[in-house]
């Protein structure tokens, strides 16, 4: 008898390819099959008419509501008001200014995001320190011969981005200081920081905005009047810095004690220890948390409509009430939702990417 090793047989045809995939992922047993059919039925019966409404039956070109005849979505409405959605009531001749500010912002962000570009530190510092000043003079004007544009004319996506960028840039350093204060050995510093953080975190942003708009003027001497936008920005920054502080505290707590001890053993002072050893590690650990706070802040900027600022959502609300375009509110909500969604989703994806890239592999997280 001669034994011969037979070649391994290929898996049965029902286990590989499309059929195999379907069997494994969709029809694995009776429960799963029923679930697939039920969910699939609902998805199809919902998605098909929606896609038809958004893309196939929709109208895109025209100047008035008469162009919307095909029964689908009326994107003519959005197209006609696009300028307002983007710039609010900013004078049309000056639109190049928010555009320029936006291009610089996007350019530097792309510079920071791309892996190959050099001098990232410099660009980041410029973006955090110099850019806000440039952007302010670009948007507000009254310098270098630029005509002044009052802040109550700012609106739309421009205002949303102003609120978000200022909120982010201002709340990060304040949050770091608060987090360090909360970890401090000095009892008074610690209790002041804890009180500050707990109070701001325990109340809704709306009440903070109300406070900024009705109470802040009372706090300052007579005749010192504050711009409404500035008041909202102060409220948002204070609110957000409390959240930021808690995220950073989490990062500080995650740094092994040995790191602090090693820094002490080297004879580093408090600030050297924090800036050179602890903070870089803590901030890296906390990237997901910080980006989550940014995303929350970005979405929360829509609340300023309650105190009468015209961010992109408020512009949409106003457009929906235009008698010429009544009945197309779904279109404007969808458009604004898409704007917010693109920003938030890309931020969250980028943070996941960074998290993976920066994970240096020590520790078992």
């Amino acid at each position: 008898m001669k034994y011969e090793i037979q070649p391994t047989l290929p898996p049965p045809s029902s286990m590989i390819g499309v059929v195999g995939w379907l069997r494994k992922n969709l029809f694995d047993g009776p429960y799963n099959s029923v679930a697939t059919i039920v969910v699939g039925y609902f998805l199809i019966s919902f998605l098909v008419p929606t896609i038809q409404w958004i893309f196939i039956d929709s109208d895109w070109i025209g100047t008035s509501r008469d162009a919307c005849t095909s029964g689908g979505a009326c994107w003519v409405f959005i197209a006609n008001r696009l300028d307002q959605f983007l710039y609010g009531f900013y004078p049309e001749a000056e639109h190049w200014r928010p555009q320029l500010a936006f291009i610089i912002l996007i350019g530097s962000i792309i510079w920071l995001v791309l892996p190959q570009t050099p001098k990232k530190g410099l660009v980041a510092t410029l973006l955090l320190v110099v850019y806000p000043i440039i952007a302010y003079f670009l948007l507000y004007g009254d310098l270098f011969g630029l005509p002044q544009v009052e802040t109550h004319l700012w609106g739309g996506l421009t205002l949303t981005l102003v609120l978000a960028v200022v909120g982010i840039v201002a709340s990060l350093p304040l949050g770091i200081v608060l987090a360090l204060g909360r970890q401090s050995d000095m009892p008074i510093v610690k209790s002041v920081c804890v009180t500050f953080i707990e109070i701001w975190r325990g109340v809704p942003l709306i009440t903070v905005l109300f406070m900024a708009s009705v109470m802040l003027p009372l706090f300052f001497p007579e005749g010192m009047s504050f711009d409404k936008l500035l008041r909202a920005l102060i409220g948002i920054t204070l609110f957000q810095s409390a959240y930021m502080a808690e995220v950073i505290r989490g990062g500080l707590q995650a740094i092994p004690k040995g790191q602090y001890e090693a820094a002490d053993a080297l004879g580093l002072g408090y600030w050297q220890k924090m800036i050179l050893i602890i903070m870089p590690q803590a901030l890296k650990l906390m990237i997901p948390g910080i980006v989550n706070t940014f995303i929350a802040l970005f979405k929360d900027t829509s609340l300023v409509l309650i105190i009468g600022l015209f961010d992109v959502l408020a512009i949409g609300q106003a457009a929906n009430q235009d008698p010429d375009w009544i009945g197309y509110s779904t279109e404007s909500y969808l458009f604004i939702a898409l704007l917010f969604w693109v920003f938030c989703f890309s931020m969250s994806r980028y943070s996941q990417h960074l998290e993976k890239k920066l994970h240096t592999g020590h520790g078992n997280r």
Partner: protein
Amino acid sequence: MSNSGHKPDGGSAPQNAPPLNKPKFWNDPKKRSLLFQVLLLAALGFVFYTIIQNTLTNLEQRGMTTGFDFLSREAGFGIAMSLIDYTEASSYGMTFLVGLLNTILIAVMGIFAATILGFILGVARLSDNWLIAKFSALYIEVFRNIPLLLQIFFWYYAVLRTLPTPRQSLEFFGSFLNNRGLIMPAPVPEDGFGLVTIGFFAAIVASWLIARWSRKRQELTGQQFPVILTSIGLIIGVPLLLFLFSGLPLGLDHPELKGFNFKGGITVIPELIALWLALSIYTASFIAETVRAGILAVSHGQTEAATALGMSKAKTLRLIVVPQAMRVVIPPLTSQYLNLTKNSSLATAIGYPDLVNVFAGTTLNQTGQAIEVIAMTMAVYLTLSLLTSFFMNWYNARIQLTER
């Protein structure tokens, strides 16, 4: 060589050695921190002093009064929905109470719905079924990246406001849905309904006793008892039987179309429905991610061990995975509950009469007492936050892993 030079009785430290350089005042950490704290206190004191002085001057110049006397004055405005008796003749203090109760109502309703929806979605995202997992992922990515306020507006203005007028209401099971809200028949208890209520509570007590007895028995003998099924049977069955045998002691107040609106029944205002939908759908997407993280935190060996013991998938999930996942899930879940409660304040944007709308809105505008009103509103949310986290911390400590 063990001398340290600091031992008082060591005697090895030479008496006539030159004294150690006394550190400069600003190099002594203790004194420096003391100075720093004194400076901070002084700065804070100065800021608060200036603010209070400015506020007092400003209030005086505008002729505004301070104090809480306004709470007992007559409010003189109506509120669309109130859980307690409220008329225009009620006081501003009552408007506070009405708003507070409405806030609590929407928070409880929202937490309830968001928890159920969030758990289903969180488990579904980890399902073996590709379609279900992807559907859940899509839901989460869509809804948590869109501002809540926009979602509230969408449900309110684009969906509920475009429903037909009362005359063309959608009708189902004696209820009516139109742009004024959902109008349902109101239950009116008649004689003998008290018996049903008693039966209901008795069934709850009985279920609790059975659960205790069965846990003891399982610890002693290892035999299991179908506690959940029995409890459901008791809690539904006992009141139902009593209800049937005592001659259906429950009338229904059917809503009727009179003129342009409905009379009778219970009306759920569209603002409440829109807010409830938006809050639950939005928060559920965050809860789902929390639940998913919790389930993933349970080591896969646990599932494998359960499978090796021959437990079914459903039983593994219910008895092995979820209880362990809860430990990871509870703290972030608490934050989500708090967020939902605080987010319910967005009600003011569509006019649901919650605390912020009724009190920090109308009452503030009418009385002008900004400081008192905002302080009371903030105090309510702070208290709710602290209470919720206190309760959840207690629960968290109770189910914490006890290592032996």
